[in-house]
């Protein structure tokens, strides 16, 4: 099924521009030798030939959107550091663990030097004096590949003191986690990097760019975001924005999993590629397995409200998807065909978030767990109609007010746009509610079908064995 056995899951059929996956077809793409032979570190050289401000301006002009989930422009983020406060740090978020997401691990395993070069360019432009590359604990191969690449890059003079003979000096430190989804939240990532429990920090301050690692200005960027920079430096922002749309330029990596004929990781053109292209396109997933019908799909990782076939023609454009009631998130699409048991599928995600709640905020710690328990008994055929209402009530305590959902002609529903209000510090609590809310709103009849009306039997009658 896979195009390249060494890049499991990655498929490059079709004639599309490759910004971050250009070396995936090479078996030894992770070595310094191959990297340099294929234009590696040319972006760094180009950057060092210009002032940090000029490099920063180019990244701003290219509107490189963050690829971690929130989609915030990287160039703008770098500019949020307070004037005159030093030192500033770069923390790379390689803690990929959003359900459905599979791209950063590939980028780290297949092209670690590209990531390192991206870190160097970002640090040069934003005046960041030390970089911490935080890789998810469970990614053994990614850690080995990045460690090896860093050792090679130090020896060759690409990282460390006076890089390529310039004034630019920086250490990139490989850091690795120990298993906690919530650490992907940027302030939790920083807490974890300080050696503490990975609990998200109370906001404000909203951005670690103001107060981050050790209380200093810190830029937290996703792996894929940084991997875009070498190409951008070599080819320029005009070439970058020529791909995709004005508001969503460039490419992005998307993993499509679940009930499709050809699940895979694809580098797609941002802004214009539609969900229909991805699910049914010949160069992408080639339709639903076994000729089945599409029932629903999660468009942007487990935290994203669900879509149905009605939303297939939406393009990969944040504003449009937000208005339609969901988000693009981390480039993860999970597809469910008509045989899917919707309540059971929702449970797999709610269980995930309940398990991963850090426990700091009561609405998430208690609410997510309640949602899991109540949904679990409904799935087991032990639920009541009151349980269904109760799940909405629990959700209301995590996210008061209107909760985003997709439109449905059949159900007469108008889309409720993203985002939601929340009573928790971070997005884990709301995310536990997302699958429950989407499934109940769009597929209520499936829940009703699972409800068993339990007979109320008086205790005395039970004791007498009268039932």
């Amino acid at each position, binding site marked *: 099924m896979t195009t390249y056995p060494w890049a*499991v*899951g990655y498929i490059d059929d079709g004639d599309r521009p490759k910004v971050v996956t250009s070396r995936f077809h090479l078996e030894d793409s992770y070595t310094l030798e191959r990297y340099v032979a294929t234009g590696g570190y040319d972006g760094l050289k180009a950057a060092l030939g210009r*002032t*940090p*401000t000029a490099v920063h301006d180019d990244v701003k002009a290219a509107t490189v959107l963050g690829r971690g989930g929130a989609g915030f422009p990287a160039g703008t983020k770098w500019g949020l550091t307070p004037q005159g406060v*030093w*030192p500033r740090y770069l923390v790379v978020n390689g803690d*990929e*663990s959003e*359900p*459905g*997401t*599979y791209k*950063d*691990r590939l980028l780290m395993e297949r092209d670690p030097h590209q990531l390192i070069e991206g870190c160097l360019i970002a640090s040069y432009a934003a005046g960041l*004096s*030390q970089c911490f590359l935080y890789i998810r*604990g*469970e*990614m*053994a*191969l990614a850690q*080995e590949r990045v*460690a090896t690449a*860093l*050792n090679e890059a*130090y020896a060759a003079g690409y*990282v*460390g*003191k006076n890089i390529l003979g310039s004034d630019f*000096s920086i*250490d990139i*430190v490989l*850091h*690795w986690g*120990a*298993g*906690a989804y919530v650490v992907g939240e940027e302030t939790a990532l920083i807490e974890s990097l300080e*050696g*503490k*429990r*990975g*609990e998200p920090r109370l906001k404000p301050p909203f951005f670690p760019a103001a107060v981050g690692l*050790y209380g200093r200005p810190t830029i937290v960027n996703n792996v894929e975001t940084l991997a875009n920079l070498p190409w951008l430096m070599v080819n320029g922002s005009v070439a970058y924005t020529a791909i995709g749309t004005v508001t969503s330029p460039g490419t992005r990596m998307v*993993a*499509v*999993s*679940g009930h499709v004929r050809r*699940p895979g*990781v694809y580098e797609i053109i941002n802004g214009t590629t539609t969900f229909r292209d991805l699910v049914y396109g010949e160069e992408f997933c080639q339709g639903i397995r076994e000729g089945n019908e599409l029932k629903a799909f999660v468009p942007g990782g*487990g935290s994203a409200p669900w879509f149905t076939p009605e939303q297939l023609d939406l393009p990969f454009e944040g504003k449009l998807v937000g208005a339609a009631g969901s988000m693009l998130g981390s480039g*993860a699409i*999970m597809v*469910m065909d008509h045989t*899917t048991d919707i309540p059971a*599928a929702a449970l*797999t*995600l709610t*269980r*995930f978030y309940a398990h991963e709640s850090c426990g700091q905020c009561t609405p998430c710690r208690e609410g997510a767990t309640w949602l899991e328990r109540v949904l679990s008994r409904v799935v087991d055929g032990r639920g009541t109609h009151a349980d269904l209402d109760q799940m909405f009530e629990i959700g209301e305590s995590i996210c008061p007010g209107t909760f985003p959902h997709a439109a449905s002609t059949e159900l007469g529903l108008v889309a409720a746009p993203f985002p939601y209000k929340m009573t928790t510090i971070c997005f884990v609590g709301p995310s536990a509610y997302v699958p429950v809310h989407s499934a109940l709103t769009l597929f209520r009849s499936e829940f009703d079908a699972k409800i068993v009306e339990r007979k109320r039997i008086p205790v005395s009658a039970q004791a007498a064995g009268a039932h």
Partner: protein
Amino acid sequence: MSRLTEANVIVAKEIMGRYPKARSATIPLLHLSQQQNGYVTNEAMAHVAELVGATSAEILGTATFYEMFKFEPVGKYLVNICGTMSCALLGAEELIHHAEQKLGVKVGGTSADGMVTLERAECQAACTEAPCLQANYRFRYRMTPQALDTFIDDLVAGRLDGEIPPHGTVARVRQHIPADRGVGAVAPEAVDDAPLWVSAAATSTEASK
């Protein structure tokens, strides 16, 4: 045995030296202790606390937050089968049930021979290759009950020793920053000024005006 060995203290100090604050090395050091002992012992946590300048309670607090740290012995191999959505849609429950039967344990248990501990894991970032599992954090993709049987037999028989190290070892390659190439970590309190390449560029821009 339970505290870090002398050789590992050298490794620990090298790791700590890369951070502006030693406490940042807590998780890597806990991994190091788990690599040495197979799980995280109380003595090791006390030792890590001494090294990074924290209390043992603080280290316990950090350690217990994270899934990968185990506080009692586990099998030589930790087999984590993913049960989150993409894998669940393609038969993860059946696979977990099959693994329980094969190993004669429930999820969380260790096989009678002490070789394999079975866990249900959350999303492992291999969603297009569902259902997937990890053995000591090494992947197996698109698993079937039959493939799982063969895999566990191979694992227990030692046929995969070259690829899959015993529990505790995650990455087999460590970063080493050569003394003559490294910039060195500086405490944040000791820095007030912009880095050289920023101030130098600013000065030359001023001069050219």
